């Protein structure tokens, strides 16, 4: 094999010559741009990146990235990526998936890649709708959603992707928004640096079938008043006009006015490295009246799956340096049949 590319890479190096075919105005464009900006900054040779996707609008992603890419089948990207990463731990493997792909048809693989802590990054573009099949409700669609397949409104309770990930034992969980470029890039950098499975939910606007699904976050006043940016070691604060914070009150969390609280001593100090995922879960599932947290919900160190698998194989290889095929087939009881003596 030839040597690694060592030249400094730029965003252009990661743009493929395939024409990008998402609908104009789709949030996927912003995510693509962020990824193409972050990848060259990671110090990883281009040929070491692999993007694995499933099926859906988001899963066209690999075609637009000038890296190795594998557009697999519906829901199965985490499984393909697991096999790839186990056999090639040297690669930087990124799974791109959507809410239907990861949480419906691929729900099983999604939770298992997380509980195993395979060293892959999972970017879930959540637009709360099926786009590619032209507008059916998805497992993250809200109750009451009217779509082609729910003309009277959906009665299915939705999944909260972060809660599912935390429940599955994910070691890195984060959330960002397609058009919040600086924030998205910083979250992607954090994900890249995490050794195990890094899960990032990205709110993604589908302007064709589910426009403004995340207005409560992206709309101008919401951005400043309704978004809580998680900062490790800092108190949970939000709101520009009227600064507020999150405090603990008995068994639950409450929103408090910072002006009244004075020095903010009663506010919850954010710690993304807590051994228990309980607080992250509470923040991931905050209800009405609370802000929407963005940033890193959890980042804890844990053994990486492929490292453990490979360590077992290597230890066995080292313990039996002379393991030959001869030994393999001749292990066990053997006997000789002599040739004709005459």
């Amino acid at each position, binding site marked *: *094999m*030839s040597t*690694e*590319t060592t030249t400094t890479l730029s965003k252009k190096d990661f743009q493929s010559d*395939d024409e990008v075919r998402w609908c104009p105005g789709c949030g996927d464009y912003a995510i693509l741009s962020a990824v193409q900006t972050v990848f060259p900054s990671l110090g990883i*040779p*281009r*040929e070491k990146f*692999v993007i*694995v996707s499933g099926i859906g609008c988001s899963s066209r992603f*690999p*075609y637009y990235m*000038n*890296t*190795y*890419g*594998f*557009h*697999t*089948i519906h829901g*199965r990207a985490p*499984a*393909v*990526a*697991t*096999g*790839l990463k*186990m*056999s*090639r731990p*040297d*690669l930087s493997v990124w799974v791109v998936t959507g809410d239907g792909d990861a949480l419906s048809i691929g729900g*099983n*693989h999604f939770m*298992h890649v997380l509980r195993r802590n395979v060293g892959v990054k999972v970017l879930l573009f959540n637009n709360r709708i099926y786009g590619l099949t032209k507008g059916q409700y998805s497992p993250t669609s809200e109750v009451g959603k009217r779509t082609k397949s729910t003309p009277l409104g959906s009665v299915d309770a939705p999944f909260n992707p972060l809660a599912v990930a935390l429940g599955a034992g994910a070691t890195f969980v984060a959330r960002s928004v397609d058009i919040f470029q600086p924030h998205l890039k910083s979250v992607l950098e954090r994900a890249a640096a995490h050794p195990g499975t890094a899960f990032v939910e990205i709110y993604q606007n589908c302007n064709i079938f589910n426009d403004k699904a995340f207005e409560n976050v992206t709309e101008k006043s919401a951005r400043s008043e309704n978004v809580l940016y998680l900062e490790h070691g800092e108190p949970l604060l939000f709101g520009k006009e009227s600064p507020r914070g999150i405090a603990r009150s008995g068994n639950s969390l409450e929103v408090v006015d910072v002006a009244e609280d004075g020095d903010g001593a009663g506010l919850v100090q954010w710690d993304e490295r807590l051994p228990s995922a309980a607080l992250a879960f509470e923040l991931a599932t905050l209800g009405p009246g609370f802000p929407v947290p963005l940033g890193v919900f959890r980042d804890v160190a844990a053994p990486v799956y492929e490292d453990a*698998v*490979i360590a*077992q*194989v290597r*230890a*066995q*290889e080292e*313990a*039996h340096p002379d*393991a*030959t*095929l*001869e030994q*393999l*087939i*001749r292990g*066990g*009881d*053997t*006997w*000789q*049949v*002599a*040739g*004709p003596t005459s």
Partner: protein
Amino acid sequence: MSLPVAGHERGGDQSPERSDAKAPTVQRVSDVVIRFAGDSGDGMQLTGSQFTNTSAVLGNDLSTLPDFPAEIRAPAGTLPGVSAFQVRIADYDIHTPGDTPDVLVAMNPAALIANLGDLQPNSAIIANTDEFNERNFKKAGLEGNPLEDGSLSAFRVFTADITTMTRKALEDSDLDVRTKDRCKNLFALGMVYWLYSRPLENTVDWLQLKFKRRPEIAEANIKVLKAGWNFCDITQLFQVRYEVEKAALEPGTYRNIHGNSALAMGLVAASRRSGLPLFLGAYPITPASDVLHELATYKRYGVTTFQAEDEIAAVCAAIGASFGGALGVTCSSGPGIALKSEAMNLAVMVELPLVVCDIQRGGPSTGLPTKTEQSDLLQVLFGRNGDSPVPVIAAARPSDCFEVALEAVRIATRYMVPVVLLSDGYIANGSEPWRLPEIEDLPDLRTSFHDDPETFLPYMRDERTLARPWAIPGTPGLEHRIGGLEKADVTGKVSYDPHNHERMTRLRAEKVARVVQDVPDLEVHGDPDGGELLVLGWGSTLGAITGAVNQAREQGKPVSRAHLRWLNPFPANLGEVLARFDKVLLPEMNMGQLALLLRGHFLIDVQSYTKIEGKPFTRQEISDQIDRQLGASRS
């Protein structure tokens, strides 16, 4: 002289002899079939395997047929709880585990009743009388004691209080009664060892190794084994002892091997010979799990095993590993293969090497998990959306799984294609002596990855094989995208062009058709120039067909046989060979799946002979069909 009730003689090689006055008659037999039957908790599989291994080391040819109950532990003493192990040993080259047992060891009434129908008049029954009581008669659905009511008068019945004598042998032991009783299968084994003049050493060594950490258990088992042997030696329960000489097998080193073990070893050998690390993605399923179990112990050979969350993840992980440059393999049975079909199609589309092993069992649906069948042939050939051909190869016998694994890997890597390897429960769990190959005689499977950006396009093709280049991530300058969407010829870009789709569909088919370049011509055993009747087989029917055809030819009947190893593509001369015979008889353990294909391909009225009982054909069944076909063509 007593009648040789517990074995078959052949020709003039019978040599009865009397050593001294006390000793029983020792008689040489050529071929014997023994079936050990008991409760699933009675350790019958272990007993049978021990008898097999000892006989293997003695140099007999042998063939085994385990028969597991579907339930792990059905209620003790009932018919669904019966577990059996049949072993045939011979002093010559045999092909099947035998049609009917010469000796049935019945550890309880249910085991007797469940197997009685397979016995011939004059077969021997060794029964553990301790278990023949009212409670067990009721459980087995019996009115009275079959040992006493005359219903077994056609057979030679030998009785022994096996449980009582086991306890007696362990009188001095501190073990509890339950643990003592668990040794009783070794008593029965000791008896059968005596009857067939087998040494105990092999089993003694094995017990010592197996219970290394619990020497008291090893000691108890050994004591009981010897007690069983001594019981026969002292009581003269049997007046005749038998000997089965070494078989005149081809010279070489042998070991006894199960199909699934041979498959696992074959995959490791293919990995070593190709220089590609082996990656197995699997999900537990009967009767394929042993391949996963065995490969999990071969980490020293650089093998990675992945027990996935489901069948789909298992094959997808293998595809991911192949994409990364490993030897991706998945292993399952029919229901699992059904789940894998979409991913197999992905491998067809992205043209990556992959080996999919299907250890067939009775279907449809959950079907008969522990029983054998050949009914996945059409599933693996056609059970995917779109025009999606894949090469299919089938193992014929336990040791053949080794070679077939190498072949499957050779084709998968040379042609960049998923290959299906068919085995079945009969081969997987059955065993036979395997003449070990010389490592340097194994095929050279070395392969190389493309690494030159100047000459690279993802879907350019090799002239001979039509394989596309294997370009693995990490190679500078070869960054490219693959996926399940239709690809443009040569460039591999996504393409919806109608002409391109037709071209690519034909290219994928042509690539699989070209595998025929690596498929040897079909060989006819018997009359190569043709004749009245050809018996054609595939997969595990080889043994019964070979036995029946050899016998028929010895009797001067005009019948030949041939065996198909590749089911897709067929050998180039298949049509021509079939046309040389007036009639073609095709036995299959399904409703005639290959027959349907051959009729369609060659417009020949193949005579389909089917059996769908979850059991392999007996030689006799094939013999009867041969006679029927020959008779019909003469009348």
